[in-house]
């Protein structure tokens, strides 16, 4: 604090704003450096390539399926966590926070271990193959995003006064009717924002996917896997195209969720 003190006293707010800007500039320089790598003709040829199209397709399809499953499970789970008291609720709550904290590669490895157990092998042999297969991408994305989706939707439901449901119930609505006609429509924007974020997270999922589904060109080659494969082959210009695609998606999603958040608060 010694020598900084006069500076700080002078304009602490400016200093704080400077800190925010330095972070901004840090991220901005990273983005800018991307454009030094992009060669227009190579860029176009990759964009037109079948392999790029495959990555986009597999990423979108798997992320979409993951999002649908996550939301279907997360909406009732979030409702239960927000509105009801049940046994082991703290334990359930704790477990749903784990994917937020634990390394996706550990989660992917856990899945891999599970499919090496008796039960896992039974599922693999008789129902669906996950390891090094497309369904593995989906379950890897699900394991890293379901907990987060539940938290986000719970936050959206928490914001809605339970008294709306109380009133609906005194007016003759059952628990489910009160939920479906009042809480669900009121939480709609929050749920959509959570779904969009889950989709974005799933598109970008790498650690769990590479562990369970592997990095197999034209098979489990999602956009992040494609970046990984291109970098492994020192194809930096090629990687740049995929990075740019992910960034564009990220910006779109951020702006989308903000639009929905604004509607909710407005």
């Amino acid at each position, binding site marked *: 604090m010694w020598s900084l003190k006069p500076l700080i006293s002078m304009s602490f707010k400016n200093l704080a704003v400077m800190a925010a800007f330095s972070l901004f500039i840090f991220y901005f320089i990273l983005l800018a450096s991307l454009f030094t790598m992009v060669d227009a003709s190579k860029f176009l040829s990759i964009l037109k390539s079948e392999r790029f199209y495959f990555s986009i397709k597999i990423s979108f399809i798997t992320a979409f399926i993951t999002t649908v499953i996550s939301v279907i499970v997360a909406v009732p789970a979030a409702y239960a966590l927000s509105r009801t008291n049940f046994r082991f609720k703290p334990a359930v709550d704790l477990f749903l926070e784990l994917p937020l904290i634990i390394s996706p590669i550990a989660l992917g490895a856990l899945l891999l271990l599970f499919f090496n157990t008796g039960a896992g092998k039974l599922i693999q042999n008789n129902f669906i193959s996950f390891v090094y297969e497309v369904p593995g991408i989906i379950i890897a994305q699900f394991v890293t995003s379901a907990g987060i989706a539940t938290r986000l939707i719970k936050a959206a439901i928490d914001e809605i*006064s339970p*008294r*709306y449901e*109380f*009133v*609906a*119930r*005194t*007016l*003759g*609505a*059952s628990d489910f*009717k009160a939920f479906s*006609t*009042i809480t669900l*429509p*009121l939480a709609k924007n929050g749920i959509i924002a959570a779904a969009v974020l889950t989709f974005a997270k799933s598109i970008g999922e790498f650690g769990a996917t590479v562990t369970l589904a592997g990095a197999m060109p034209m098979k489990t080659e999602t956009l992040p896997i494609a970046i990984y494969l291109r970098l492994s082959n020192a194809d930096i210009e090629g990687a740049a195209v995929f990075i740019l695609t992910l960034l564009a998606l990220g910006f779109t999603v951020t702006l989308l969720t903000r639009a929905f958040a604004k509607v909710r608060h407005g």
Partner: protein
Amino acid sequence: MVKIENLCMDIGVFSLKNIAFEIAKGACHAVLGPTGSGKTVLLETVIGIQSVKSGRVIIDGRDVSALSPATRDIAYVPQDICLFPHMSVMDNIMYGVRVRKLDTAPLMPMIDELIDFLGIRPILGRHPSGLSGGERQRAAIVRALAAKPRLLILDEPFSAIDSALREDARRLLKELYARHDITSLIVTHDIDEAYFLADQISVLIAGAVVQSGERDDIYNYPKNIAAAEFLGVRNIYDSAVESVQERSLAASFCGGYKINITCGCAQRKFSAGQKIKWAIRSEAVYILKEDSDPAGKSNCFDAEINTIYTRGKMHTVLCAVSGGAVIEIDIHDAAFNKLKLARGKKIKISLNPDSVFIIN
């Protein structure tokens, strides 16, 4: 008729103890209590959101204690009104009718009448977000009454309304009660509001009903210190019974004065020498005109004005009786001006023996 029988509840450190009162058909009952006394918990228990530990809620002879809120036939207007924000006012009003799949036709005349009476026809198509507090409240009342509930519950009914508009809202509700046969329970911390709207009042303090009865009895004769203080009684004195007559008793007052009390037949329970507290509301103490003869009046004392708090309609005068006790007097602006009251002025005050009451 609604009966609350020995209701007990435990929520964490908080509990309701043996709550019991009745609401006659068509009557309005107010549960009056300070913040944290358990008003909202009581109300949620009656509605069925909280389940009872013991005791019963009986509505028109039917024990609803174990029923879900949907089948209790109780309508509820919460403190924050809670009109469903994603529906128009009309859809809000019809929510209960639709969700119960009731036949709309026979209900519409009454709903229409309520809509007109409460003046919300112009806003039926609007969504709640643009409405004023008063409009929301009126819409919520129509929503609550649309399916003809057996009991209407209002939680702090006017807290969402700007204070300048509350008087009109109160009068409208009072008129609504007069025109329709509505059995109602209101919950409030506001003494004036409870007195204005309710026929009976229960005073709830720290989870227990300390007094329940007719509005005037509660207002004029609170039975214990907690209720008296909460109800704004400011003249409370320690005393001892001096003598007991058939229809009155005499008690000591500061400096050897005596005070006659005729309130009810309460004196039967008392005997000479017993320690009591007596009290009188500040608006029941009169300042006599300078030329009036106190001989004929009972409970007259000489006093000197200590402090004057001026307000709009009523002023408050604090005066010291010769014996030392301070008595607080609320006096109407006109009388105040006529008597030319001022600090230090010597006055004669009179305490109507009917207005003096004994508290535990």
